[in-house]
C-alpha cells in the first residue's frame, strides 16, 4: 500500500466568525486497514490540532461520527480508506446545527424528536418489586429489538429532502420510533393517540417516500416497512375518526 491520500475537509468555526467557511486540504500516506477514524485523528495530531470532528465508540455502535463522505452520509469510523478513491471530501451532516468543521449537534435534534413522540412506555401499571416480570413472547422481544437498533447517527435525516426543508419533521427515525412503541404491548397508547403525533405534515404526511433514508442507514433498519405500516395504519385511523366511530381499539 503506497497511496498518498488527499483530504478536502470543510472548515468553519462559528465561534470564530472572522475566519470564513472554506475547504482545507490535507495529505496523508495510507496505512494498512486505515479507517477515517485513524486518518482524521492523525491529521489532527500531526497537522492541525484545531480540527473538529466527533468520535466516541469508534466501533459503529454509538452513532457519533456521521458525516458526508464523498457526497454520501455515513459513519466515518467504519469507513475504510481502501474503499475510497485517493481524493476524499468530507462535509458535516446537513439538517443539524453546525458545532464546527465536521461536528454537528445531533443531540438537540434527537432530544426534541423523542420529546415529541414521547419516546417512553405509557402505562398505568405501577412497578411491583416483589412480583415476577410480566411475560413476553421471545419472538416479539426480538422484533422490538430490531426497531430499537437505531443509533441516532442522523444519516437518514441528512439524506431526507423533507427534513432539510422542515426542521420540525420527525424523520424516518422518529416514525420508526413510534412504530417500536406501537409494537410493544407494554405501551397503552391507542391508535388515535399515535395518530395525533404522526398524522400530520411533521409526521407521516410530510414524507415524500423517496427512501433516501433507508439507503444510507448504517444499521440497515427496515425504515421503508415502518413508513408503509404507519401510512396504512394512520390512513385507517383517519378514516375511522372521520366516520366518528373511534372506539378505543387498542392495537
Amino acid at each position, binding site marked *: 500500500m503506497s497511496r498518498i491520500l488527499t483530504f478536502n475537509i470543510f472548515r468553519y468555526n462559528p*465561534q470564530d466568525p472572522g475566519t470564513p467557511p472554506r475547504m482545507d486540504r490535507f495529505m496523508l500516506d495510507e496505512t*494498512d486497514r486505515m479507517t477515517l477514524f485513524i486518518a482524521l485523528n492523525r491529521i489532527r*495530531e500531526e497537522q492541525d490540532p484545531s480540527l473538529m470532528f466527533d468520535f466516541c*465508540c469508534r466501533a459503529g*455502535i454509538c452513532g457519533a461520527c456521521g458525516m458526508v463522505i464523498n457526497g454520501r452520509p455515513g459513519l466515518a469510523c467504519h469507513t475504510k480508506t*481502501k474503499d475510497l478513491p485517493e481524493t476524499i471530501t468530507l462535509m458535516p451532516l446537513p439538517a443539524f446545527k453546525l458545532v464546527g468543521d465536521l461536528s454537528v449537534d445531533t443531540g438537540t435534534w434527537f432530544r426534541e424528536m423523542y420529546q415529541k413522540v414521547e419516546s417512553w*412506555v405509557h402505562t398505568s401499571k405501577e412497578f411491583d*418489586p416483589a412480583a415476577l416480570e410480566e411475560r413476553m413472547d421471545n419472538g416479539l422481544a426480538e422484533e422490538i429489538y430490531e426497531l430499537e437498533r437505531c443509533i441516532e447517527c442522523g444519516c437518514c435525516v441528512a439524506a431526507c429532502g423533507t427534513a432539510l426543508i422542515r426542521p420540525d419533521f420527525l424523520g424516518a427515525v422518529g416514525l420508526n420510533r413510534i412504530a417500536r412503541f406501537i409494537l*410493544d404491548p407494554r405501551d397503552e397508547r391507542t391508535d388515535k393517540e399515535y395518530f395525533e403525533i404522526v398524522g400530520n405534515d411533521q409526521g407521516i404526511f410530510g414524507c415524500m417516500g423517496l427512501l433516501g433514508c433507508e439507503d444510507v442507514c448504517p444499521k440497515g433498519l427496515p425504515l421503508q416497512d415502518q413508513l408503509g405500516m404507519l401510512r396504512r395504519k394512520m390512513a385507517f385511523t383517519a378514516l375511522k375518526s372521520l366516520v366518528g366511530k373511534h372506539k378505543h381499539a387498542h392495537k
Partner: protein
Amino acid sequence: MQTIYSDLLCIGAGLAGERVAIEAASAGFDAVCLSIVPARRSHSSAAQGGMQAALGNCAMGEGDGPDVHFADTVKGSDWGCDQEVARLFVDTAPIVMRELAAWGVPWNRVVPGESKYFKGGKEFTKVEKKEKEGLITARAFGGTAKWRTCYTSDGTGHTVLYTMDNRAAQLGVVVHDRVEAISLIHDGTRCMGAVVRCLKTGDLRVYLAKATLIASGGFGRIYRESTNAVINDGGGHVIALDTGVVPLGNMEAVQFHPTGIVPTDILVTEGCRGDGGTLLDVNENRFMPEYEPDKAELASRDVVSRWMTVHMQKGFGVKSPYGDHLWLDIRHLGIDHIRTKLREVDEICKSFLGIDPAYQLIPVRPTQHYSMGGVRTNKDGAAYGLAGLFSAGESACWDMHGFNRLGGNSLAETVVAGNIIGKKVVDYLKGCEAIFNSKVVDAAVAKQAARITALRNRSNGSESAYAVREAMFDAIMKGAGIFRNEKDLTECVETLQALHERAGRVGLKSNGVGPNPELTLALKIQGMVKLALCVAYGALKRTESRGSHTREDFPERNDRDWLNRTLATWPEGASLPELSYEAATKVFEIPPGDRGYGGGKIISA
C-alpha cells in the same frame, strides 16, 4: 457567567448517572445530568454481552440465586471486594432487571423446548421448561457457576441505555450534552457543584447543586490500546483527585481483555474462544496449549492476556504498523456458525478490518478494558473526603469488583448502584440546606479561566498536549500493563513524574477559540498523567499478585500483608500521590480462599 442550580448534579449521563437522577426525580427533586456526548452515546451503549442477575429462569440457570451470584463475585474479585456491597448488589440485581423490563427493555425471553448450545467447541442439548415461558432468559459468561447474564440479542447496553434515557426524559431529568466538567467547586469539606466548559461554544458555566454525583465511566484512555470509547479519559476522576481530599481506590486494578482487534482495539467477544476459536502466532502455530495445557484458550481473561503478552515478547508476534499482534482463528467453526452465532464478530471484521473471518485470520492483542478502581465511596455511594459528593458506576470504587470484575457484572452494577445510591442521595437531599459560598465559586471559576488563558497565551510553555499524551501512553503501556515488576514500575513512575512536569508547560498550537479540541485535551492532560501515576505508583507499592494486578516478582496473592484497598490522594503541588490503605472488607461472609481457577500461590492471612 451562566449559573445553573439544581438539587442533584450528575456528572455523567450513562446508565449510572441517569439511574441515580431518576431516583432523585421520582422523589420530586430536580436533577441535571451532564455529558460530553449526547446521553445515548455514553459508553454504556457499547456493552453487547449482557448484565448479571440471579433470576434462575432458564434451564442452565436453574438453582441460581443471590448466594451463588455472591460467591462468584467475591471469587472473581480475588477477595479484594467489599463483601457488604457485593451482598447488596446481588440481592438487588433481580429487582432492577424486572424494573427495566417494566420500563421497556426488550429482554430476550425463555422459549420452551429443546435447543442446542456450544461449549469448548462441542455441541450440547438443553430443554427449557414450559412454565418459564416468556420470563427473562440468560446466557453463559466467564466466571459464573450458572447462566445468569440477561441480554437483548447483541445490544444489551444499547437497549438498556435508550430505555433509561426515555425514562429520564419522562420524569423531567434535564440532560445537558456536549459539556465537560473541568473542576469541582468545594471548600475542602463540602462539594457545591462544578465548573463546566461548554463543548459547543467553549464558554465556562457554573453548576451549583446540593448533591453532586460523579458517574463519568472508566478511564481506559490513559492506555493507548483500549476497548473504551475515546471520551473515557478519566475527566471525572481527575476533578475528584484535584480536590486534594477525595481519594481514588485501587487504581492499580486494571483489567485487560485478550481479544481487541488491531488497529482500532474494538472488542471481539469471548464467545469466539468459547465456541472453539484458537489463538495463533506469526508462524500460524497454536501456542496457548504450551502455556496452559488444560484450559488453553479458555483459561480466564487475565491468564490468557498474560500468556499472549509473553509469547509476543519472545518474538512470536506479527509485526504491523500498529505494533505487534497475534491471530484469532475461527475459520474452522464454519461459515454457518460464524454468520449466525457470531454475527456481531462477522460484522466487526467486515466493517472495520475488511476481512471475512470465515476465510481469514483476525488480528488481535490484549487490550485495556475495564477500570476496577475509581472514586472511593462508602456503601451508600458517598465519596470519602467531601460531604455532598457521591459516585456510582464504573467511575466509582464502591467496591464490588475488588481486583477483577466479572463480565456482565458492571452493567448490572450501574443500575443496581443507581437504585441503591439514588435512594441514599434522596435521603441526603431531604436533610440538606443549600449554602453556596460565592467567594468559593468565584475562585473556582477564576482558576479555570486563568488556566485557559495561560494555555492560549502559552505563558507556561509550548509543550504539545498530544506529544505528552503519546509519551504517557508509552510509559504506562510499558510499565503498568499486564505484567508488572519493580524495575519497570520504578522507571514508569519516574518517566511519568517527568511528564507530569512537562504537562505543566503545555501551550496550544492553535488559537483555542470556541470548542477547540486541542484545548479540551490540554485542560486534562496533566490530570491524566496524575491518574497514570496513581496506577503505576499503586502497582509499584503493592508487592503481591491479586486478580488483574500481576507482579512477576511477587507471584503470590498475599492475604497476610495485602488484603486491603489502596487509597490515593493528591495533595496540591505534589509530584506523587499519597497512598494509604484500608481493610478490603469489614465483613467476611466468605473468608479468603482459592478461586478454583487461575492457579497461583496464596500467602494466608
